[in-house]
Every structure is written in C-alpha cells, then in structure tokens.
C-alpha cells in the first residue's frame, strides 16, 4: 500500500514536475495574478465586442485591456502552452490547468483572443519552418498583429476547393489577383492567411497554396458586408496585383489544401462550441414569462415539450463533447463522434435561439433601444442562422459523415 502511495509524493517522471513544484507554481501564479491583473479585468467580457483582439490599431474598450494583455504576454501567458522559443508560456498541461484555475478563481478574463491564436498559430506550429515561426508567432503572442482568414470566394463556398484567386510566380514573390468573401473582420486585420491557386493543371485540390501577406498595401481593398442581424463581422476582400513574399508560403507550393483542411477542422471545433455556452435553463425562464400550472409545470404544454427536447439534446451533446475529450486523453484517438460536432452544435444553437424567441416573446423582437438591450436577443437569433452555413454547411457536414465515417459511396 505504502509503495503505491509513494509515487505521487515524489517525482512523476512522465511530467518532470513534482507535486510540490506544482503547488509552488500555483502559489507564485496566484500571487502574480493578484498583483498584475487589473480589477477591471476581473469581470467576464460582455459579448464578442468586449473581447480584446490586439492588432496595430487595437479596438480598446477599456484602457486596462492593453495593460493586461501586455503583462500576460510578457510571460507568454496569452498563449500558455505555446513553446517559449516563440514567445509562448511553455507551460505543460498541468501548469496550464493551474493557470486557468487561478485565473478563474479571480474571474480574470482572457487577455487576448484572436484568429492568430486560435487558427494561424496552431497551423504554423504544425506546418511552418523555423524561420516562419520565429517571425510570425511572437507578434501573435503579444497581440501586435491581427490576422484574418481568406478562404471562401463568391463561387467557392461549400465547394471551397474550386477557389480561383490566382497567385502568379514572380521569382521571390507572388502577384495575387481575385476576390475573397466572408473574410471575418478583414476591415480590422493587419495580415491575412490566404488560400490561393498557384496551379490550374491538376485536380481542384491540387495547386492550392497557403500564403501570408500584409493587408496594408495598395492591391488590397476591403468592403464590410452588412448581415441580417445588422452587424458586419464579415467582409468582401479584393486583390488587385497584391504582393505576397515567397518566404511567407506555408508548406509546399500546391499543397495548401492539407493545411486548409487542418484549419477547417479547427474552425469547426470552435463554432460547434458556441452551442454549449449554457446559460440559465430555458425552461426555468419560461416559467417566469409564460407561467406554470398548479403542479408547477410550464403552463403551455407544447412549449414545455419543445424546451425539454432541446435541454435533453443540449445535455447529451455536452456529455458527448466530454466523452470525445476523455477518449482522446486516454489515448483512444479522436473517435468518429468528433465528426458530428460542427453539424450538431450549430443546429442546437439555432434551436436554442428559436426557443429563446418563443420564451421571451415581444421582448425578443426588439431591434433597437434600451428597453430591448439594443436588440441583443433578436440579433443573436439572426446571427445564429449563419452558424450552420459558415465553416462548412450542415449539408456538407452530413456528406462528410456519410462518406468518411459510414463509407457510403459517391453519387
């Protein structure tokens, strides 16, 4: 018995850290956060608009946002698990978990959130050269460069691989011509990671290359798209003899589709998690707005059933995300279940928004004004319609499951 208990008290070889080291790390982290996290950053961000995204001309809602980001970036803690060689925190899983717990303890918000962190960074770590990592990762860690993603085109949406934006070889650089659409926050981004066609001779999946270039040049024009929700998170982006240096080609020329697929998987995981940001129970809220019968049941039985079905599916979906995570941690690989996340998570989020309308009634139909909280509910509902379109439509996801998971043949 004693021998079994011992290893946890001494060095755990697999992690290289002792329990007391971890405890010391926790104590130091706690003290450092206490001293360095501004009081104003100890509240959750209020919606997407309140998240600090960095860049050359950052949108600053509160002066402490930049201060908090700079302090965390100095330790690499804007991206705690990236290698220290590229400016990251270099923390292992246990340490990162402790940092997250300690931040949560004081309700500290994340200092920086960006496409650089969530999308380009992981792709560079996987596919970039040493030189490319050294050049591009540290400015992401420090929030100095804001990135956008140039994927979809007017005629290449669900069929992304048929993209036509051209990149012509000019020796040490490419000249780029064409148009992207649905480029998230292109009007606010400094650089773009972009899929371009460097070769037209093979199949549509071949000849696509993944390049990075500065948006601040004469050949790049950006035009925001106003959505049904009234906001403009997406843009049309035009390239008219824009220039990309060849040293910023990621991976081999013509092999960009591999990187694109890797990033799409990443993006789908992000979008599918929208549906799991659970708030107070819809059913309980409905009791307030609709009323209950003598036995305490929601007075409208039809609404009650719809909400119960939604809450059941939301619960079961959350356990499915947990199960897939646990299986991966246990070394059982990323199961086939992960293929359903994008499809199911976004459909669930749309259901939640529709039910929210049904539960709130008139209050959810306002568009402007303080009484309607600026139309937050109706705008969220409208925005959710895009969840099952962006990053691969529900129909494309079902095609992928049919073919890759179930092995059903092509039409």
């Amino acid at each position, binding site marked *: 018995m004693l021998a079994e208990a011992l290893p946890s008290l001494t060095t755990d070889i697999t992690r290289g850290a002792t329990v007391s080291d971890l405890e010391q790390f926790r104590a130091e982290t706690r003290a450092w956060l206490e001293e360095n996290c501004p009081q104003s950053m100890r509240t959750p961000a209020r919606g997407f608009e309140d998240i600090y995204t960095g860049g050359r001309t950052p949108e600053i809602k509160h002066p402490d946002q930049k201060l908090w980001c700079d302090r965390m970036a100095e330790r690499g803690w804007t991206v705690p698990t990236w290698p220290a060689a590229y400016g990251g925190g270099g923390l292992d899983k246990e340490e990162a978990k402790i940092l997250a717990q300690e931040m949560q303890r004081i309700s500290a918000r994340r200092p920086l959130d960006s496409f650089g962190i969530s999308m380009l960074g992981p792709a560079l770590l996987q596919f970039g050269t040493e030189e490319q990592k050294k050049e591009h990762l540290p400015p992401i860690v420090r929030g100095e460069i804001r990135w956008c993603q140039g994927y979809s085109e007017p005629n290449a949406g669900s069929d992304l691989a048929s993209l036509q934006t051209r990149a012509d070889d000019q020796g040490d650089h490419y000249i780029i011509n064409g148009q992207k659409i649905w480029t998230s926050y292109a009007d606010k981004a400094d650089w773009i990671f972009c899929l371009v066609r460097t070769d037209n001779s093979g199949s549509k999946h071949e000849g696509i290359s993944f390049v990075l270039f500065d948006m601040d040049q004469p050949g790049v024009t950006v035009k925001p798209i106003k959505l049904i929700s009234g906001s403009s998170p997406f843009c049309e982006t035009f390239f008219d003899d824009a220039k990309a240096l060849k040293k910023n080609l990621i991976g081999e020329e013509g092999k960009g589709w591999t990187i694109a697929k890797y990033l799409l998987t990443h993006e789908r995981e992000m979008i599918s998690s929208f549906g799991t940001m659970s708030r107070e129970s819809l059913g309980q809220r409905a009791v307030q707005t609709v009323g209950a019968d003598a036995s305490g049941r929601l007075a409208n039985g039809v609404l009650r059933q719809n909400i119960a079905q939604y809450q*059941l599916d939301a619960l079961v979906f959350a356990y499915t995300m947990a199960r897939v995570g*646990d*299986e991966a941690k246990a070394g059982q690989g990323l199961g086939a279940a992960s293929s359903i996340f994008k499809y199911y998570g976004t459909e669930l989020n749309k259901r939640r928004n529709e039910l929210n309308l049904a539960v709130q009634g008139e209050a959810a139909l306002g568009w402007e004004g303080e009484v309607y909280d600026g139309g937050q509910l109706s705008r969220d509902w409208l925005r959710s319609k895009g969840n099952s379109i962006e990053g691969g439509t529900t129909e494309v996801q079902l095609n992928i499951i049919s073919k890759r998971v179930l092995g059903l043949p092509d039409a």
Partner: protein
Amino acid sequence: MALVLNEEQIMLKDSAAGFLAEKAGVPQLRALRDSGSEAGYDAAVWQEMAGMGWAGIAIPEEFGGLGYGYTGLGLVLEQVGRHLSNSPLESSVLVAATLINELGTEAQKQQWLPAIAGGEALLSLALQEGPHHAPEQVTTSARREGDSYVLSGSKVLVLDAPSARHFLVVARVEADGGLSVFVVPADAAGLTVERRSMVDSRAAGALQLDNVTVPADALLGAAGEAGPALERTLDIANIGLAAELLGLSAEAFERTVVYLQERKQFGRIIGSFQGLQHRAAELFAELELARSIVLKALQAIDEGADNLPQLASAAKAKLCEVAQRASNEAVQMHGGIGMTDEHEIGFFLKRARVAQHTFGDYNYHLDRFARLGGF
C-alpha cells in the same frame, strides 16, 4: 469520472459480445419463438451466463456478487441489445436484485442476493397495473392479519413471469399510505400467473392476486417506506434498459448501413443517394449522443451521484427517441425485405418498442426530465 471505458471494461464488453453472438443471437431467438418456448429463453444458456459471473456483476461482494458495479452490467446489457438475447439478466438481476439490495434488511439480502448472483433464484418485479407505467397509482392492497399480510390486486407486464420462482409485488398496506414490496412465491395459494406472449417474442405475465397470504417477513424493509428505494431501482432499471436500447439501435443501424452499401436500384448502390445519406448521417450523430448519456448515467449509478433521477430520465428518454428512429429507419431503408419475417431486422423493431415501454416510455421520461428541471 472520465467518460471512457478502461481496459477491463473493454474486455468484458468484448467477451460478452463473443458469447452472445454464438449462444444467444437472433437465430436462437427465432428458434425459441418458433418452438413455443414457455420461458422465452434458453435455461442452459442462462446457467452459462451465471457461470461467467454476469448475474453477480453488480451485486456487492459481501452478498456473493462480483461488486463490479452497474457500468459493467450496462456493458453486458448493451451487447444483449445488439444480439436481442433474452435471459433473466434484466428481470432478476438488473431489477429484482437491485430492489432487494436497496430495500431489504441484512437478512433478506443474505437470503436472496447470493442465490440471484448464482443464477438459481429467479425473481421478477410486479409493479405495473394499467396500460402505462405509473408507480404512484398502485392500488394492489396488503392487509395485515396477525403475523401475515394478505395481498389482493392485479399486475401486468411482469417480465419473465412464466419462469420466475418469486415475485416482488408492489402494494399498499394503507390505501393512502406509501408503497411496500412483498416477496411472493410463484406457487402461493390465490396467485394466478397468466403467461402473456409479447411482440418481442419474450414472455411476460399478468398476475392475479386473490387474498394471497404471505408471512410478515416477506415484507422487504419497512411497511409503506419502499418509495425511495423503488424510485432508485427504477432509475437503475431504466438506465440498464437504455444500455440495451443503445446496443439494439447501434446494431440495427449498422446492419442498415451495410444494406445501403450493397443494395442496387436504378443501376446504383442506394447508399449513394443523398436522400438516404443524410438520414443515415443524422442517425449516426444521434447514436453518438446516445452512447454518451448511457455511459454518463451508468457511471452516475456507481458514483452515487445526486442527480441520478435526471440522468436516468435523460438516458431513457433519449434512448427511446433514438431506438424508435433507428428501428423505423432500419425497416424503411431495407424496403420490402424489411417487412418479411424471414429477415432479421424486424426483430429489432419489435424488441425496441417493448424495451421502450418498460418502466416508462419517452413521454413519461421527457415529462419527468422537465419536472426535475424545474419546469
């Protein structure tokens, strides 16, 4: 607890799958049905299952079981669902042993649990009285007379009734009081057991209790206080049935996908039609969700989780929904051949509905899920 199976559990699952495929699959079920088997299962196969320890998986070691927990039993039940294997594993082990363990005195547990774990004692719960699961509406009465109780009332859907040697009869000692449970021998005077042949080719039964006298120590636990133990037993039973429905649905789905990959019409493999592909893909997603809630609920039993009632109703409601869709789509996608008795897919449809109904269907459990959720 991580939502993942450990190596020991995976081995148990694999060995159950192997055994049932050989000894208790759909061909054996068809043979039992066609030969007019009274019990509806093969007693020799049941003895083999007990010999492998299955009857004692969830029974504590101190009472002759393996103490391996309900997660283990659930994994076996999932395989039972895949093969439509009938045996007293649900009636006697999942339900009756659990109720005795939750409600019985030390002496009653010593009397019954080792015998159930050994596969010798066969008990079955007699609860339902009307067309629907409604435990709060039990009217069977138990009148105290000296050192005895006298039971009167009627029961339906008593699982494996023809082969059960004892029944756990739910009754009320006082008409407006709480529930009580009595152990009644199958050959008690005044008890009539009517075998009822069900659509799933299993045998259930209707009981008529006409002044059946049992000794006072036939009462499990205390009079009028069986409610909480019965509720917990039903939660566990429903999670077990959800595990069976998971196996059943997954098997029906996988057989259907194989059919979609083989069957040709209009000169094409029908699985190439997008109208079928998307329905199959959606069903695949539902099955993955079903798998998660079943595992979560099984673990919750073993962990003694506070929210067991919610998880039990979530698991049963979800699995009723998924099993209904999977079994209906299986027949539809098989087309005409799926309507024939010769083809095996129909057996899955038939078993699904009985398992769905047993101890509360989708409507019952979705309503309960909402009620427990405060609306």
